[in-house]
C-alpha cells in the first residue's frame, strides 16, 4: 500500500494539452497510472494520448469519476485551476507549477481549510508510488516497490536519494515531493503521520532544506509520535543568511531556518541525520 494513492485513484491532468502536460501524461500512462482524462478550457472534445479532454474539471469528474488531479498550468492561472479542482470535489490535487505568488497561495491555503481536498505542492515533483502510480514528474525508473517512505521538499535531490535507495535494494512505498515554496498544501508532519499509519511503510526518509521551521516541527512530531525509524538530510548547510537559494522557501531569515538548527532538532528527536545524501541507505540499515 502507498500513502495518498491506491488502486482506486482515478487521475485527470489539468493543462493536458500543454507541452509539459502532454509530455508527462504520456510518461504517467506508460508507468501504469490510472489516468482517465484531462482538462484544458476551450479544448473539450479533443484527445491526448488516447485520453479524453474536457473543458472543465466538473465535466471531467462527471464523465470519468476522477478523484485526483495533477496540475501543469502556468503560475498566473494555477491558483484558479486549484480552486476549480477543489470545487469539483477532487480529493487529491497535486500542483507541479513553480512560481505562484505567495499571497495567492495563502488564499488557496485558507480556501483548502474550508474543504476536504488535499493539496500536494505547489513547486513540487509530485508523488511516486512504485508499482502503483506516478502522479507528477518523478522519473519512474528511479523507484522500486518496497517499505521505505520518502518525503522531501526537493526535486532532483529526491531523485538522487530514491535512486540510491533503489540501487541499495531498498524499495519504497511512496515518494512524496511536498515542494520548495513557503506556503504548501501538505507539510512534513502530515506526510510523516501518513507514513506512520501506513502498515507497509517500515522506515522513513525526510529530505529538508534551509528556510522556515517545517523540519523543526517535523522533529517535534517524530519525537512525540513516531515509532518507525527516520533518516534525514538537510540541504543548505553552506548557504549564507538572507539569500534565496533557488526555491522561494529556501532562505535563512532573521537567523532562523538554518540547516544547523534543523539538524540539531532532528538529532534530538532520535533521527539519523546524514552529512551526505549518499549515506542515507546505510543509515536505514
Amino acid at each position: 500500500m502507498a500513502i495518498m494513492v491506491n488502486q482506486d485513484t482515478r487521475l485527470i491532468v489539468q493543462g493536458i494539452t500543454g507541452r509539459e502536460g502532454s509530455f508527462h501524461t504520456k510518461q504517467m500512462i506508460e508507468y501504469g497510472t490510472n489516468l482517465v482524462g484531462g482538462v484544458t478550457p476551450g479544448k473539450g472534445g479533443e484527445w491526448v494520448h488516447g485520453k479524453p479532454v474536457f473543458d472543465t474539471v466538473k465535466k471531467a469528474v462527471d464523465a470519468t469519476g476522477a478523484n485526483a488531479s495533477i496540475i501543469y498550468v502556468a503560475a498566473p492561472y494555477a491558483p484558479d485551476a486549484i480552486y476549480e479542482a477543489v470545487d469539483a470535489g477532487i480529493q487529491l490535487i497535486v500542483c507541479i507549477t513553480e512560481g505562484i505568488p505567495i499571497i495567492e497561495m495563502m488564499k488557496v491555503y485558507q480556501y483548502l481549510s474550508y474543504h476536504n481536498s488535499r493539496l500536494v505542492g505547489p513547486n513540487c515533483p509530485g508523488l511516486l508510488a512504485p508499482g502503483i502510480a506516478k502522479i507528477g514528474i518523478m522519473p519512474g525508473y528511479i523507484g522500486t516497490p518496497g517499505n521505505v517512505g520518502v518525503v522531501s521538499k526537493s526535486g532532483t535531490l529526491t531523485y538522487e536519494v530514491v535512486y540510491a535507495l533503489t540501487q541499495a535494494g531498498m524499495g519504497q512505498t511512496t515518494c512524496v515531493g511536498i515542494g520548495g515554496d513557503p506556503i504548501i498544501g501538505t507539510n512534513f508532519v502530515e506526510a510523516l503521520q501518513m507514513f506512520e499509519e501506513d502498515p507497509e511503510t517500515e522506515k522513513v526518509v525526510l529530505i529538508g532544506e534551509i528556510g522556515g521551521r517545517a523540519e523543526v516541527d517535523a522533529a517535534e512530531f517524530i519525537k512525540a509520535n513516531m515509532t518507525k525509524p527516520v533518516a534525514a538530510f538537510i540541504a543548505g548547510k553552506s548557504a549564507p543568511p538572507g539569500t534565496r537559494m533557488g526555491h522561494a522557501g529556501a532562505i535563512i531569515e532573521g537567523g532562523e531556518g538554518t540547516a544547523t538548527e534543523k539538524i540539531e532538532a532532528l538529532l534530538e528527536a532520535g533521527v539519523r541525520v546524514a552529512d551526505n545524501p549518499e549515506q542515507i541507505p546505510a543509515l536505514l540499515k
Partner: protein
Amino acid sequence: MNLHEYQSKFRFAEFGIPILKGKTASTPQEAYEAARELGCPVVVKAQVLVGGRGKAGGVKVARTPEQAEDHANAILGMKIKGLTVRKVLIDPAANIAQEIYLGITNDRAAGRPVIMASSEGGIEIEQVARENPDAIAREHIDPFLGLLDYQARNLASGINLPHEHWRVFSRIAANLYRCYLASDAVLAEINPLVITGENQLIALDGKMIIDDNALFRQPQLAEMRDTDAEPKEETLARAAGISYVKLNGQIGCMVNGAGLAMTTMDMTKLYGGDEIGPANFLDIGGGAQASKVAAALRIILDDANVKSVLFNIFGGITRCDEVARGILEALNEVPSSLPMVIRLVGTNSEEGRAIIDNANIPNLSSAATLTEAAKKAVEAARKALAADKGAQ
C-alpha cells in the same frame, strides 16, 4: 527583491502612510540642494540594502546644507557590509518622542499574513522577538477578509499605545496592509514608526521585500531593482533564466535543481574544510541544452576566484547522453583550461560518461558518485591554490 528605504517609503506615501517627504541625492552637490530646499536640520541616510547603516556611520544629522554636502561626500562611496553606497536620502529631521514597530510578513506555518507591532521600535524585530517576546503584539490576517478594525485595535492595545493615537495608528495599519497586498510584498515594515514631539505618527524608516514570484505582475516594482547592489553575474544569470547566487569559495558549481545545488555546495564545503568551498549556487533548471549550459559556464568562469568546476546533473526526464553533448558543445563555445569534474547520474548515465571520457579533454574528468565528484573538485581547487601561492 529588496527595495531601498526611499523606495519603500515613497511607496508607503502613495498608500496614505505619513512620511517625511525627503529627497534622494547621488552627489554631494545634490545633497546640498536637497538640504537647502527641505530646510535644515536634515538627516543624510545611506541607501544600501543591508541593516546596521547607523552603526556603520551611514546616517548623519546635518545642521546646514554645507554640512549635508560634507556628510554626503563621506557617505557616498562608503562600503557598508560589502555594499557600496550610491545614493543617500535627505530627510527632514524629526523630533522623536517615542519609537514603535509595525510590520507585515507571511507566517509560513499559519499560511497567512501576520501583522506585528512592538513598543520597542528602532530595533530589529528579530532581536525583540528573542529578548522580549512579550513586547510584540501579533494578529493573523485572513486573506479573504483583510485586516479587520478590531485587529488594529488589538495591536494598539497590545503595545499600550495611548488612546489618542489609536485612530491614526489603525489607519496606518490598514494602509500598510493595502500597500503589502498591492505590492505583492513578503515584508512591509515601518521601523520605527515614531510619535513626534508634535504628537504625530510618522513612518521614519521603511523596508519592503517584494515576492520574486509576483514580479511578472508588478512591472513598476520590478523596474526598481537595484542591479548595482548585486554582483554582475547575478544580473546576467537572471537574464539567462538561471538561478545563481555568488558565494566566496573556489569551486564553481553547475547543478540541476535547487535542493541538489545546495547539496552540491554543502559537499564541497564538507570535503573542502575551512579553506575550500563553493563559489556559487547555480540551478540550471530543467533540461540542459548546450546554450543554457554555455550561459551558465560563462557566468561561473567570470568569477576570478573559481579554481575548479563541478557539474552535478541528475538526468531524470533529461537523458545524460544529451547533457554530456550539451556540456561538450558549451565547452567549445566557452573554452577554459580549469579542471572540471563532471558527474552524470540517472537515465543513460553510462553513455553520458563515455561521451565525456571519449572526448579526451585533458582538464575534464568524470565521477560516479557525489562524494567522489566533490573530493575531486576540492583536490583540483587545492592544487590550483597551492600553485598560485607558489607563483607569488
